Every structure is written in structure tokens, then in C-alpha cells.
């Protein structure tokens, strides 16, 4: 009885094992999946039904350049104080340093000698025009904020600048070192007001002997970041 049951179970096992290999069953082919058609492409394993986003790096508005114009007073040594006009371009390298270029022009007045002696003028009108350019660096020494009343705070910085360039005055071009200090207040995120004090130093021999001439300038400028 027991051996008959064992034969029944064994034959059922063999039958079940054999059925799993039935060659006529088409829902599970014995040879595995048919080879993909030879189209030259790798077979698509998963085709995700996800809409791809167009990945385009956004162009962020970078504002490291600053350009503006200034007006102020320039004291040409021995030749009075006069109005000066100029333009300034700066590139902000990081929050501490910037590179800047300035160019300005002014019409110098009469020297005391010319005024007192009453003789012939030392310089012609074109020689009396004082024109300069300077290229250099600036350091934002004291960044901070300025408070207007209780509700408004404007970003500001006090900076020091040093540059080299040339001055055309009294019929010649002279190498000029320009040192200055200034304050910048941002009245808008993109618009700044500058108050600058600069000293243009060069050698000059227009009054006989060669001497170092200091030409101080105080200017107010409006500049935009772009």
C-alpha cells in the first residue's frame, strides 16, 4: 500500500517535471526570446513613458562690470581749480578687488605768475587742457551699509585705488600715478553713486625747474552695473 502510494507520488512528480518542458507550449518558448531584428541598434530594454525635460543651462544676469561718468573739481597744481569731466569703467574680480580704468579732462586756469605779471601766457589754450587716463586696481576696504532713516538700508563700500597712466598737459605727455579713495553707495541694485578723491602725481617742468606735481580731484559719479 505504502509502495503503491510512493509510485503514484513519484509518477506525479515526473509528470509535473515533464510538463514544464512540454515543447508544444507556445506561451513559454523553450529556446528563450527570439533574437532581436538586426537593425544595428541595441535592443530597447525599458522604454520609460516619461517626458524628458529640455536641459538648458540658464543664462544668469551677471553684473561684474560697472560703467559711469563723473563730474567734479580738479586742482591742477599752479593752475587753479576747475571743473573736470570723466568716464570710469570697472570690472569686479571678487567682493574685495576690482580693476578700473578712468579718463578725464579739464581746462586749467591761469597760474599765479601769469596773473600777477600780466605778461604773455605760459601756455596756449590747447596746452592748457589737462587730460589724463589711469588704469589700476581697487580694494573694497570697508564694505557695509548706510541707513537712511529707520526703514532703508543701502549697500556701500569705501575703497582705495592705485593706478598708472599718462597726463597730457602743457604740451607733453607725462607718466602719472593716481592714488585715491572713494565711497560707493548703491541706490538701486544696479545703480551706484560714487564720491571719489584722487591725486594724480607726475613730474612737470613748465615753471622752470622739474618738480613733482600733485593734482587733487574730487568727483561725484553715477555708474551702472551690467
Amino acid at each position: 500500500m505504502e509502495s503503491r502510494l510512493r509510485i503514484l507520488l513519484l509518477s506525479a512528480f515526473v509528470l509535473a517535471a515533464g510538463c514544464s518542458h512540454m515543447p508544444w507550449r507556445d506561451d513559454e518558448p523553450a529556446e528563450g526570446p527570439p533574437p532581436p531584428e538586426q537593425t544595428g541598434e541595441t535592443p530597447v530594454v525599458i522604454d520609460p513613458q516619461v517626458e524628458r525635460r529640455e536641459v538648458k543651462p540658464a543664462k544668469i544676469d551677471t553684473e561684474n562690470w560697472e560703467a559711469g561718468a563723473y563730474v567734479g573739481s580738479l586742482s591742477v597744481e599752479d593752475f587753479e581749480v576747475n571743473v573736470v569731466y570723466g568716464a570710469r569703467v570697472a570690472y569686479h574680480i571678487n567682493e574685495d578687488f576690482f580693476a578700473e580704468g578712468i579718463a578725464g579732462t579739464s581746462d586749467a586756469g591761469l597760474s599765479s605768475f601769469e596773473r600777477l605779471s600780466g605778461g604773455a601766457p605760459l601756455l596756449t589754450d590747447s596746452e592748457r587742457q589737462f587730460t589724463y587716463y589711469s588704469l589700476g586696481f581697487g580694494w573694497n576696504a570697508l564694505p557695509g551699509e548706510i541707513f537712511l532713516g529707520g526703514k532703508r538700508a543701502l549697500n556701500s563700500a569705501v575703497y582705495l585705488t592705485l593706478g598708472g597712466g599718462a597726463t597730457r598737459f602743457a604740451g607733453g605727455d607725462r607718466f602719472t600715478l593716481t592714488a585715491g579713495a572713494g565711497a560707493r553707495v548703491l541706490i538701486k541694485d544696479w545703480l551706484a553713486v560714487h564720491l571719489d578723491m584722487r591725486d594724480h602725481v607726475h613730474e612737470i617742468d613748465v615753471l622752470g625747474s622739474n618738480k613733482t606735481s600733485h593734482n587733487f580731484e574730487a568727483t561725484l559719479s553715477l555708474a551702472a552695473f551690467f
Partner: protein
Amino acid sequence: MARLAACGLLIFLGAIATAGADELDVTVADPYLELRTGPGRGFPIVHVVERGASVRVLKRRTDWFQVQDADGREGWVHRKQMAETLVPAGERMDIDDPAREDFGAHRREVGLLIGDYGGANVVTAYGAYAFNEHLAGEFALSHLLGNFSDGQVATLGVTHVPRPDWRIQPFLSIGTGMIRIKPKGTLVQTPERTDQLAYAGIGVRAYLARRFILRAEYKEYVVFTDRDENEEDIEWKVGFAFFF
């Protein structure tokens, strides 16, 4: 007239300041994003935006980004924190700043140098274009400012950088150009003269930060004069340049 010029300037400034750019919304992936009142490390932090919240990037100034959160509050965020935010595609925000690795592989370079040319002060502006990592063509304009004469020099030359992978790169240069010397009027009248010249030089350029490099060079010039002897001049200059 002055009022007209001022109006024109304001319009010009407004136009360049509002030149268009895309708006970008990013998602905070760090625990929080710190918003400062200004683009500098000393400005106080007035808001924080939590992880998962979205902010709009308005503009960038040096290493700082101005952003606006969902409630309309604005502030400045440092580049390091911005690099940890996610763009809409789910990836980290890619800030492609020029880095140390780009120095030496760059194509264009412009700079300003100040120094001494044969006893006269010299101010030079130059531009260079690299044909490959080692060899570049260079064009320079110099303003000579001496006690007895002024002048201009224009040169065209090539520079060779043997090791473009170093942070401080020595280079050799050779070239030719023209020099114009105008003696100063207060001395005996001598005519203005224009001559051809040639130079050979050595120098170094060093990576500073971002796009900036420091440059120093020494050159020996031979000026081919009309006189019996050629004139030889020595020049040294230091300055800065940026590459792009």
C-alpha cells in the same frame, strides 16, 4: 546741454543694466540657504530658505547670487551654497566658473602692464591669441613717457609657454614692431622719428583667481635707426591680465 547729457547717460545706464537674461528657479538641497543683505561675507543673514523650497535667481555679482524666495524676500547667496541647489531638471546647479585648470588652456588674453623702457615710463595694453597651449600670437601697444621724449610702440610677436600646466608659467617671446619717438618741445628741436624694432624677451605669468593672471616680463629691443649704430633698449614691465 549738461541736462541733456545727463538724461542721455541715465537712459544709457538703464538700458545696459536691464539687458535681458533668463530667470531660473532652483530648489534648495542643502539643509538651508542663507540670504544676506548684500553681496559680501560681512553682510548680515536676514532670511533662511529651507530644504525643498524654491528660490528664483535674479542676478549674479562676483561670487554672489541675488535670489528671491516664494514670499518675495530678496537676498544674496554665496556661490558655494548656490552650487548645492537643484535646477528644474533635478541636477546640481552648474556654475561654470573659470578655474585654475583653464589657465594655460585658454585662447584669449588681454592685459595691462606698467614699467620702464630704456629709462622712460611705459604703459602697455596687449592682447594675445593662443594657437595651441604652447604658442600664442601677441599684439601690444605701448605709451612711452620719458623726461626728454614721448613715444608709442606697436609690436606683433609670438610667445612660447613651455609648461602650460604650471600655476606659474615662464614664457619666451620674440617679435617686431614700430617705434615713434617725439622729443619734448622744451629742449632743442629734434625731429620726430619712426623706426622699426625687434625684441626678444622672457617673462612669467601666474594664476591669481577666476580669470585673472599676474604677468611680469623683461625684453631687449633693437631699434633699427637711420644712424650708423642701432639702438638697444631694455624694458621690464609688470601688470595684470585676464583670460577668456
